[in-house]
């Protein structure tokens, strides 16, 4: 059997690279000239009939060549020798960096990282699409070095790679046009052990653990999955990497809520890393007053904004994990009235609604329509199949109001940020692409000793006037 793929012009570079990563020099591609969305139906048919059909016939009649297997250096092979600038140039020219300078990955430096795991450097964690490269303990360490991580971050880096290698995390979709980014969420004792910032500016670059681990996640996707902007990464505008988010578990304990890691199924006191996709970030949402006022403000600013806009995909794929980050004082205000994280989730679910046609319309609703239309999903069918609750189809009125959050329990809540500031932010996730997956961190047997040694080394570098005046 043979195949030919009709490819919109802008997707040709991606199609060619994917052909190659599947083991072919090139697969038959029938290019559609132009941008489909801007062509009228008449122009679309004309291009299909007069250009694309010829290319389909030609593609099916053309021979296909198999790509020769690419040679790969062994892990300890030195692939380049040079001074700092020459190393930077070499890595930039080979597309092995993210555009920022990297710490040179020497064998000695990589071995420092390997001390912080009991796993074999040759262990294959998985294979990452689309380039189908092996994720190994060794190349996790190499990329950790490059991203500016400290060796003691290695257990978290391995946890991130494990998540990315899970088939249902769908790393192959990380180059989708919405341009989502991974968000690393850290819970448990390791938050303090590795000096994460979970206070003011928690999502700002500046603290080594948050910044370099966030950078590592994107760098690893680039180097091992092979997600390169313009080809395999079709993020249309996209945005920069997220720093790692650590939960303020002191604040959580103070109000009697469950930490995010515990909500994810782990025992209190376990160190856990979660990685999920983030497609967009809401504006800062300032809240005040009682619990209901706080929740209603979040409904209006986030639920009726990004969440409503993206609800069609979340409900169509039957999984969706929007994440809310709120500060300790908001958690306190809610808890004061007896609200738990679950109570807030339920309020958001029950009170954020949109007309049914907006959810059902799919791609159709993105085109000018004189009236609401039924599109790519049918809520009644989903209700009858038992996939969504009955209240999504209480009538056939397309203007009936339905919830936009898929289920209350799939909303995530993390407490972090300036403890005394009344702000929260919504991080909207991209349905089945990059769902939250959590891993318990595997610490080496001599973790405490190694950590103590690392802290001593780190302490030698502190002591400037700025360090003395600013307390973490």
């Amino acid at each position, binding site marked *: 059997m043979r195949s030919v793929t009709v490819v919109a012009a802008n997707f040709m570079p991606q199609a060619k690279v994917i052909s190659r990563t599947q083991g072919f020099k090139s697969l038959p591609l029938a290019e559609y000239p132009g941008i489909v969305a801007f062509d009228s139906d008449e122009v679309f048919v004309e291009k299909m009939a007069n250009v694309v059909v010829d290319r389909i016939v030609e593609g099916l009649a053309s021979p296909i060549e*198999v790509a020769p297997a690419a040679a790969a250096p062994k892990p300890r092979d030195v692939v380049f020798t040079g001074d*700092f600038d020459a190393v930077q140039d070499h890595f930039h020219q080979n597309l092995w960096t993210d555009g920022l300078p990297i710490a*040179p990955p020497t064998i000695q430096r990589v071995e420092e990282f390997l001390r912080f795991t009991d796993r074999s450097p040759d262990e294959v964690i998985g294979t990452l699409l689309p380039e189908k490269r092996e994720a190994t303990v060794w190349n996790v360490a*190499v990329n950790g070095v490059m991203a500016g991580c400290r060796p003691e971050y290695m257990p978290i880096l391995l946890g991130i790679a494990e998540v990315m290698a899970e088939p249902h995390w769908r790393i192959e979709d990380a180059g989708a046009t919405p341009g989502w980014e991974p968000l690393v969420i850290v819970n448990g004792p390791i938050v303090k052990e590795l000096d994460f910032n979970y206070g003011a500016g928690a999502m700002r670059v500046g603290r080594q653990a948050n910044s370099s681990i966030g950078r590592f996640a994107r760098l690893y996707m680039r180097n091992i999955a092979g997600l390169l902007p313009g080809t395999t990464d079709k993020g249309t505008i996209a945005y920069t990497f997220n720093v790692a988010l650590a939960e303020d578990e002191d604040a959580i304990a103070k109000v009697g809520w469950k930490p995010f890691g515990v909500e994810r199924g782990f025992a209190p006191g376990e160190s856990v890393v979660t990685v999920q996709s983030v497609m967009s970030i809401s504006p800062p949402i300032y809240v005040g007053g009682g619990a209901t006022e706080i929740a209603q403000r979040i409904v209006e600013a986030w639920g009726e904004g990004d969440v409503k806009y993206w609800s069609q995909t979340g409900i169509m794929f039957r999984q969706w994990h929007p994440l809310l980050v709120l500060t300790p004082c908001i958690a306190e205000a809610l808890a004061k009235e007896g609200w738990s994280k679950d109570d807030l989730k339920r309020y958001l679910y029950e009170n954020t609604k949109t007309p049914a046609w907006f959810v059902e319309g799919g791609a159709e609703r993105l085109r000018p329509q004189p009236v609401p239309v039924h599109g790519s999903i049918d809520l009644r069918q989903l209700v009858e199949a038992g996939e969504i609750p009955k209240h999504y189809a209480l009538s056939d009125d397309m203007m009936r109001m339905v919830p936009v959050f898929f289920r209350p329990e799939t909303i995530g809540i993390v407490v972090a940020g300036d403890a005394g500031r009344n702000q929260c932010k919504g991080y909207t996730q991209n349905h089945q692409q990059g769902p939250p997956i959590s891993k318990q961190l595997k610490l080496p047997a001599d973790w405490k000793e190694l950590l103590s040694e690392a802290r001593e080394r780190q302490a030698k570098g502190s002591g400037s006037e700025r360090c003395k005046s600013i307390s973490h």
Partner: protein
Amino acid sequence: MKNGPTYEVVWPLGKTSNSAVKVNPPVSDLNGKTIGELSVYLTPRDDLMFATIREKLRQRFRDIRFVDSHTFGMLHGPEENEVVDRLPELLHQHGVDAVVTGMGT
């Protein structure tokens, strides 16, 4: 000009794990052949695309046959893994000689 210490650095990628691929011969004459249509249904234009392709190919290859995209299911959606898993069997069952699919919108 050398600038500071010299670094001997290692490769930051991983080896690729391509399994052997089989290449089928070209289909140079579509007369009497069966074409399977595979769609992601990401745009409202999918049905229009296949209708146009069908019409034009029928003008050129009178005995060509088509298996509608709805027979195979939605390649981009909540059931896409299941759709892909049962694809080989469905293609075989319908005697498909060649597949036309789409990418990008």
